[in-house]
């Protein structure tokens, strides 16, 4: 089964808020996208449990919800970590070796782009241009930007957040 294997930690309050919103949206044409956007805002991602609630309340099939969730890149099946790592695979970063950094990140964290580590500390996203090509290759951690890095720098950067 695709999607996050981390245990679902949604609260009853979140579920109540989601169901209320869905009942309000249900009457409107094209309710699915706004419903999913709302749910992702609430939970940070769209795991099986959340998509099931959406399908149930809107009276659509789970396969419709999942189809939309995997079609648009704005939706995520995985939670985001406390530290959201972005690695730019845009042209300038790529020609300056960002693929090797990305590979090192995947190797160290044991996750792919879009996923989150089991301790929910780090999530990883391969991104497009982040707008500072002069610093290529660029890696971001939340709002921190690291430029002109090499694969061997990765461990050191991660350690800083592990200790934080």
């Amino acid at each position: 089964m695709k999607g996050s294997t981390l245990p679902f930690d949604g609260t009853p309050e979140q579920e109540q808020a989601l169901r209320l919103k869905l009942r309000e949206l249900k009457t409107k044409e094209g309710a699915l996208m706004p419903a999913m956007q709302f749910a992702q805002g609430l939970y940070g991602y769209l795991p099986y449990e959340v998509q099931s609630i959406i399908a149930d309340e809107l009276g659509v099939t789970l396969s419709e919800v999942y189809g939309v969730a995997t079609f648009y890149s704005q939706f995520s099946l995985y939670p985001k970590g406390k530290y959201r790592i972005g690695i730019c695979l845009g042209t300038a970063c790529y020609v300056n070796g960002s693929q090797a950094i990305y590979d090192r990140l995947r190797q160290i964290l044991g996750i792919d782009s879009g996923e989150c580590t089991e301790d929910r500390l780090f999530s990883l996203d391969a991104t497009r241009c982040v707008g500072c090509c002069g610093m290529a290759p660029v890696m971001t951690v939340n709002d921190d930007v690291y430029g002109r890095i090499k694969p061997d720098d990765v461990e050191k950067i991660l350690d800083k957040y592990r200790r934080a």
Partner: protein
Amino acid sequence: MIGLKINNIPVYVKEGSTLLEAARSIGIKIPTLCHLKGISELGACRVCVVEVKGMNTLVAACEYPVREGMEVFTNTPRVLNSRKTTIELILSDHRKDCLSCERNTNCELQRLSHKYDCDSHRFEGTPREFVYDDSTDYLIRDNSKCILCRRCIAVCRRQQGVGVIGANERGFATHVACPFDMKLVNTPCVGCGQCINVCPTGALQEKEEITRVQEALANPHKYVVVGYAPSVRAALAEAFDMPVGTNCQGKINTALRYLGFNKVFDVNASADFTIMEEAHELVERITRGGKLPMFTSCCPGWINYIRKNHPELLDNLSSCKSPQQMFGALVKHIFGKIEGIAPEDLFVVTVMPCTAKKGEKHRTFTDKYADVDAVITTRELSSMCKENGILLNELPDSEPDNPFGEYSGAGMIFGATGGVMEAALRTAASILDPDARFVPLEFAEVRGLAGVKSASYNIGGRTVNVAVVNGLNNVDEICSAVKRGESDYQFIEVMTCPGGCVMGGGQPIRATIVKHKTEIAAARAGVLYAADKSMYMRRSHDNHSLVKLYADYIGEPCGEEAHRLLHTRYQALPKYIKE
């Protein structure tokens, strides 16, 4: 009317028609691949493109509406070249094991590829991993042959109202699968197999059981018995190029003997037992204040659906096993007793128009024996005949064996929507009004292809309100009404597939063009109704063999022994099982 020209020929068609329909009306067939009238109208595959004067790009004829004065060209070099390239691109990542593919010679992609003289190796697609799902007892999805036409998605979602598959992800990663790429067995799939019947290629097929049947036939210690469902006789002939609506039951009996089965029985006979039990159960519920309305329980797709979607209504289901499961129990425990063969030495095979029946076979046991050991579809029977060189068209007719060779017209009509209802009413009317001088034999109101049919009958001074649900997509409304206590029906028949079993997911696969121009459901049902009309015995309780077996072995309908052999219970199932 709208006037336009197609290939310089004037055409007049209704407003709102598509170019495809306009061309068809003057005898020009535009090829299609993803199009399925009324079910899947996406314009996704681009095989039906045509050129329209004044437009820069080619348009999809299946979708494009006619306009006054339009000039359309269906066979210019540009059009032909575009179709050819499209097909070659589809072939680029298609697993081309056509020689051994189940759909060889009956594949829409293969036909088009041949027609447009395609080079199947012109483009080499990027190799990738494809979903292969054989998690259920009845179906195999092999996406290495999927062309993403999405017909299966449409038929599952829109025609059947089940919706367990969809198009996941996007771009090159797009693939048809269950949500979260779950295994099909963990979803509310009902097993109807309608997706198989609309798949243009070999991406979907039933899970074959021919091998197990052949092993049993070759085993000298097994006594192998076969029974075939009403609908098989209404469709098998099509797999041997005979016209739609040909009854080949006499030839089926002969073919099954040629294949080496020790006994050839007719499931029409066990359908009569189903009616005996179901009609008595209905009368008992009506006269003694039991749970009403009572739903029929012969259709395994419906049973799967209600268990996962409406578990609150399980007490409304008739406790009768389906004719298939009754057949197995009767063979193993009564025929076995008559012939002195132990249940473990009997191997019961059924031939069914249905894939869900494969999943049903191990659902009920009598004592510790599964009622049925193997289920093959009508398609699989045609493959077995062909593999064994049995020329169905040329076979002499023969009769089925006794004691399950005698049956009534009521058992025969089970295969058509409304048939179970009508058969049950024939017997229930006789029970409720035993002194009536005139008991109706035909209940025309419950026949036909409407989604929901309802009628009210006055039987023995009682009003009996009945409904027939033709296709699962129509059932939720009735279920909700029953839950709210707003339904005044006493008896409701539900069949998963529109048209009933004659249109089941195990029947011969017909090309889209045949589906669009032939009323297949009506023609196949016509076989059963004509056979019923021609019979002397038309009510299940008039079946002499059945009466004798009840007297000698079973006792009263719905009695203790009848319950042991012919009834079952249902448990609720979760809709999805998270993997």
